[in-house]
Every structure is written in structure tokens, then in C-alpha cells.
């Protein structure tokens, strides 16, 4: 009896071991790296698709998918197709935390791209244990300088210049062009605003009055009218800097129209709130938009003479049907192109650690539509580190201020704002990267 039992047990055990070995040997070789198989790379994005933030940023995932589909139709990355899984977080931290966790645990993505928002992403980063799982957090859609802190966010790579950088460039432009005039700042009372306020301070720029800060959602036409009435008493032609979202810029400009104050001020709209087409769509008069100064780090989406813009616009027509090509779509496709180059640079044996060191080593040489340099290095997670000053016109285009394109680079700290001689890399043929 005992002998039979132990024999039975032995045969059972060996059967299990044999099956196990068979199963293990048929697993794909990349089983160790989540989200990567011989034929597919899975990427994830958590961003607002609905709600008021969805108005501006809802187009981002679709635009990135369009570019990835274009690449997939042209061989993918070393034969692997890129799949982007998009989840709506409605700009809420609780939703961002759960959706990002879903992307990691449920969808098993290889890396995150384009995560959006400061309050949302800072919570999501920790909640989804991105640091612990070493999940690459690539090209995030926010300019909050806190994300460059590698002790807090070891796997994060920014792409947008920080709000502090923008403030410093604006401060220089005001000093260079409007030195004798008073200046005022109207900013959203959150990370845009406070990062920007800090940037102006670092640049040594003092506004004539303390910045007018408004909680998100509270800049009504009444409030705008009250603020402008107060400022209208200031002599000369003051500079008014608007650091908020496009709907707020529109509200303030429309209030200026009502009070016949459009020419009383020189308007400076921060890049987040200066999409000219949106301003026009929201009812701001073309004559008002004409002359508004802003800053950008990309070419204007309407400038089809730019090879990158033309290429992305073509991809948009073919792969993103029904969506109008604008600056948001341009920026999203640009990030997608950077992502593809990062995937290529990481090599055929794609790992999470591998892609991050690839960006550190080669990221600053990636081709992109950006007119300012990329700052990736072994010690820096900063993406674009500068701006060029633009001026909007009635047609919704942004052209270089003063007629000549001048590129400024700086940092988020006390470094000076310098003129850069950066020439961006030539676009790879047909917009399909071939780097390694």
C-alpha cells in the first residue's frame, strides 16, 4: 500500500513538473517585461477626456494613437506594433490614481506616456507605485517643475518646458520691450499660477501690483470686468500677463472688448491659454486676438511650410479623421514621435530600465518639431528648456514677435535666460524615425 501510494505520489509529482516545464518553455521570451511581446508594445495614458479639462486636452490620446498607427503601418518599432491604451481620469486625482493603477495592473502596459495634470499625476504616480515597479513615465503633459525631482519621481521624463521657465522668458521679453510700462499678472490659483509667480520672482521681475490670483472656475465675466476696471486707471500702456487656461484668456479679452480696453493694455497670454483658434472659436474678436503676445516652443500648427507641421497634418488627415489639426494635436503627435525614437533607441531587447537610460543617453538628439533644445541627460529629466516669443494675428496664427525668430533657453532656477543658436534636427523621412 505504502509503495503504491508513494509511487502514485512520485508519478503525480513528475507529471506536474513535466507539465510545468512545458508551460514555462512556451512562454514568450519577453515575459519578464510587462507590456512587451514579440509583436506588440503596450503604452498607457491617463488624461481628461470629459469635463472642462477635456475641452482642451481631450484630443491628445487620439492624436497620439493616430501617429502610432502611422508608424505601425510602416513596420512598427523593430516589427512590434504600438498599442496606446487611453483611460479617462476627468482631471480628478482619485480617478487618475485608479486609472493609472488599472493601466499598470490590469492593462499591463510597458510604460506611461503623456500623463496629464499636476494634482492628478502626483497622486497617481505614488498610488500606482510607479517608482517601485520602475515604470517609465514618459513625456508628461504638465509644466510643473516639481516633476524634475528625481528622488520623488525617479522614472519621470518631462517634455513641456516648466511654467517657471516660461515666466522667466516672459519677464525678459517685458524688460527688453516694455521697460517703462507698468505690468500686472492675472494667474490661476494653482500650480500654473504659483510656478509662474515663482518664475517671475527668480527672474527678478516685480509686478506693479501683487498678482491677481483666482481659484479655478471663478474667473467670471464680472470678475474680469472688475479686475480690468481697476487696472485701467494705471497710466500708459501696461502689460497684462495672463497665466491661465484658454477659456479664462477668452473671458478676460472679451471683458476688455466690452470695456473698450483692448488697446489700453499690451496682452501677454501664457502658452497654456493662448491657442488662437480656440480664442476665436470662443467668440473673441479677431481684432482683439491680433497682437496678443505669447510664447511657444513649437512651430505654429497653421504653418504648413514647416516640414514637421505638414507631416503631422497629413497623418492627422489620414489617421485621425474628423479631428481638426491644431496646436494640441501637433504637440501630442510630437510626443508620440519622441516616444517612438525612445523605443527605438532602447534596442530590440526592450526593457523598462533600458528605455530610460536610452533617453538619458540619446534623448537630447531626438528629432522633434520643437524649436528649442531637449535637455535630457544622465542627471536631467527636463524636456524642452526654452521658448520663443510669438505674436498672434487675426487669422489665428502665431508668428515670431518682432519678425525674427529668437530662441531663449533657461532653467527653472536662478540661471540666466540666454539666446540660443539651436537648430533642430532634420525631420526623418516621412516622419518615420530610423534612429537606434
Amino acid at each position, binding site marked *: 500500500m505504502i509503495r503504491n501510494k508513494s509511487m502514485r505520489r512520485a508519478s503525480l509529482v513528475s507529471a506536474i513538473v513535466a507539465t510545468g516545464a512545458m508551460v514555462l518553455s512556451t512562454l514568450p521570451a519577453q515575459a519578464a517585461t510587462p507590456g512587451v511581446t514579440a509583436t506588440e508594445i503596450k503604452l498607457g495614458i491617463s488624461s481628461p477626456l470629459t469635463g472642462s479639462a477635456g475641452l482642451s486636452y481631450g484630443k491628445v490620446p487620439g492624436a497620439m494613437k493616430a501617429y502610432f498607427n502611422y508608424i505601425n503601418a510602416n513596420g512598427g518599432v523593430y516589427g512590434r506594433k504600438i498599442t496606446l491604451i487611453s483611460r479617462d481620469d476627468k482631471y480628478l486625482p482619485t480617478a487618475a490614481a485608479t486609472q493609472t493603477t488599472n493601466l499598470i495592473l490590469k492593462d499591463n502596459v510597458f510604460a506611461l506616456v503623456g500623463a496629464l495634470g499636476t494634482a492628478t499625476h*502626483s*497622486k497617481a504616480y*505614488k498610488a500606482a507605485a510607479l517608482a517601485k515597479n520602475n515604470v517609465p513615465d514618459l513625456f508628461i503633459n504638465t509644466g510643473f517643475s516639481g516633476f524634475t525631482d528625481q528622488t520623488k519621481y525617479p522614472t519621470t521624463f518631462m517634455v513641456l518646458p516648466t511654467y517657471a521657465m516660461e515666466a522667466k522668458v516672459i519677464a525678459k521679453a517685458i524688460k527688453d520691450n516694455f521697460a517703462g510700462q507698468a505690468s500686472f499678472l492675472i494667474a490661476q*490659483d494653482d500650480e500654473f499660477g504659483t510656478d509662474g509667480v515663482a518664475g517671475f520672482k527668480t527672474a527678478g521681475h516685480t509686478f506693479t501690483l501683487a498678482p491677481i490670483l483666482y481659484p479655478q472656475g471663478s474667473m467670471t465675466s464680472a470678475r474680469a470686468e472688475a479686475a480690468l476696471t481697476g487696472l485701467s486707471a494705471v497710466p500708459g500702456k501696461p502689460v497684462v500677463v495672463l497665466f491661465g487656461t484658454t477659456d479664462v484668456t477668452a473671458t478676460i479679452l472679451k471683458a476688455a472688448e466690452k470695456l473698450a480696453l483692448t488697446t489700453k493694455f499690451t496682452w501677454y497670454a501664457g502658452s497654456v491659454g493662448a491657442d488662437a483658434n480656440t480664442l476665436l472659436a470662443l467668440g473673441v474678436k479677431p481684432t482683439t486676438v491680433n497682437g496678443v503676445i505669447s510664447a511657444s516652443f513649437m512651430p505654429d500648427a497653421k504653418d504648413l511650410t514647416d516640414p514637421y507641421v505638414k507631416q503631422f497634418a497629413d497623418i492627422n488627415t489620414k489617421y485621425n479623421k474628423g479631428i481638426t489639426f491644431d496646436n494640441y494635436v501637433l504637440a501630442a503627435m510630437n510626443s508620440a514621435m519622441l516616444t517612438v525614437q525612445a523605443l527605438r533607441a532602447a534596442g530590440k531587447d526592450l526593457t523598462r530600465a533600458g528605455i530610460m537610460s536610452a533617453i538619458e543617453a540619446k534623448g537630447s538628439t531626438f528629432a522633434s518639431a520643437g524649436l528649442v533644445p531637449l535637455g535630457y541627460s544622465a542627471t536631467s529629466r527636463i524636456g524642452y528648456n526654452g521658448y520663443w516669443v510669438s505674436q498672434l494675428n487675426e487669422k489665428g496664427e502665431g508668428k515670431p514677435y518682432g519678425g525674427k525668430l529668437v530662441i531663449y533657453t533657461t532653467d527653472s532656477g536662478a540661471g540666466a535666460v540666454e539666446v540660443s543658436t539651436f537648430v533642430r534636427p532634420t525631420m526623418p523621412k516621412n516622419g518615420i524615425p530610423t534612429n537606434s
Partner: protein
Amino acid sequence: MLKGTQSKKRLVLFIAFGWALLILSNQVGDLKLYQGSFVATYALAITSIILLTGYSGQLSLGHSALMAVGAYAGALSIFNAGLNPIVSLIIAVLAAGTFGLILGVIAARLSGPYLAGTTLALAVSLPTLANQFSILGAEEGIVFDVGPAPARFGEDFSQYKWFFWISSLAALIMVWFIANLLSSRYGRTFKALRDNSIAAELSGINVGRVKVMAFALSSGVAGLSGALLVMLISGVSPSAFPLSLSFALLTGAVVTGLYNLKGVILGGLVLVAIPEIADSLVSRIGGSEGFTTTLPGFLVSALLILAVVFTPNGPGHLIKRKHHKQKVL
């Protein structure tokens, strides 16, 4: 005598359920554990709504604000005062409860839509207050870090399992406490108040005081759920407690029965599961961008309406009514 066996039964039930959860937590993966933590947290929040509205008859649209009070209190006590996480949870309950006490004094004089309006205004204004005081961290908020699991559980002990244990335990203890309270004399007092405040007054109940108590208790429970919620998202910020959260909780409470606690877990499940189901449904159907992004919200609302139309008193009542109908015939 009856009360004695009932409360003993309840204690045994809760302990048994707790053990079941413990065993279950070792079987399931991280994702389910994370989702389970949210279920526990929302179930707790729904309990606070049932206590206030189902039992004492006061409608509040501002529970997101009460959760925020507890959350900030808890976060501050860990981050600024460096206190133990368990202590911070207790502080969350006390802070929110005290706030609710004050609020309750105001609310006791109000009824129906007046109370609803007041709590609504509270829900939209309280979160923005965080922007006023830099100690509250403004938009980036304050980190809420309960720390890793104790070393004796081993290095591989998942952070999500730790969250699950903490949130389930806290929820179990609090719900058990409230359940006991509601089946005691206090519970009957609440119910009397809800059903007919004039008659309650006549039978010697100090209506004002009871209302305030109910508010304070409900707020304390909400405060705990708020602290647990920010534990799960690793930090508190004003945008974590939007008005839509208040509405979602009310939805959960109505869908699973406003009048007793039996459905709270189901309510929590609904709040977690429905968006998930909607998301996976959408990814399977596909469609235009406009369609796929609005469909989940649409489905959640549709479910809510169906629930209200077909089971306004909760599924339990539906069954009871059927029996009643048959009896009458």
C-alpha cells in the same frame, strides 16, 4: 435579552466576515485588492449617508466636504505632526465629527431643500479653502503616506494588500459600531425623528439635539472614509473631493437601499464596478471619440435612473413589497 443575542450575533458576523476578507486577501491579486480598498472606503462613506439621511431624515449634498475635512486633518497629522497613521485616522474622525457638530447646529433648524442648498454650498466652497492656507498645500496638496507594511509581514507584502487591510478593518469597525448604535435606543430615536418629527417631539425627544448628534456622527464616519480615500491616492488635494463625489455617494446609497446598512457593501461595489464595466464595454464596442468618452458617464447615470425608478427604496424593500402585495390580495 433579545438585544443581547442580536448584538452578539452581529459581532460574530462581523468578525467572521473580517476573517473571510483576510483569507481572501491572500488569494487575489493586487488590482482586486486595490479595487477592494475603494469598495470598503465607499461603503463606509455610504454608511454615513444612510445614517444621516436614511435614519435621521436629513438630506446632505455636502458629504464630500466632510470627507475632505477628515482627509486634511489626517494628512496634516501624519505629515506635519509626524503622528502614527492609526492616530491620524482617529484624528480624522474627531476633526470631521467636530466640524459636523457645528454644522449640525446650523442644520438642525433647516429642512428639506434648505438643508440641501446649504450642504451644496459647503461642498463647493470648502475645497477651495485649501488654496487659501499654504499649510494645506494648495493645489498640489499634502502627502498622505501610511508607510509600508510592518517588517514582520515580509518584504513581499504588497502595498495594496496593506491598504486593503487598513481600509477594510477601519470600515468594519466603524460600520459595526454604527450598526450597533442604530439597533439600539438611539437608532429608534433617529427613526422616530425621520418618520414624524412632531410626534417624536411630543413623545419627549429633543429633536434638535438628536439631529445634531446624527450630523456629528455621520460627519465622523465620513471623515474616516475621507482619510482612507486619500490614503489610497497617497495624498489629499482640493480636487479630490469635487461635488460629483457627493452625488456619487448619494447615488450609491439610493441604489442599494437608504434605510438600512445591509446594502452598503453593495453600494461600494456599484460605485467601483460600474465605471469599470462601462470602460471595458466601451473598449469592446469602440466607436467615435465622442461616443467612447461620454458613454461611461452615460451608463452610470442610466443605472442610477433605473435604480430609482424600479427600486427607490432599495432592493430589499422591493422584495418586501411583493410579499405585502400578495398578502393584501
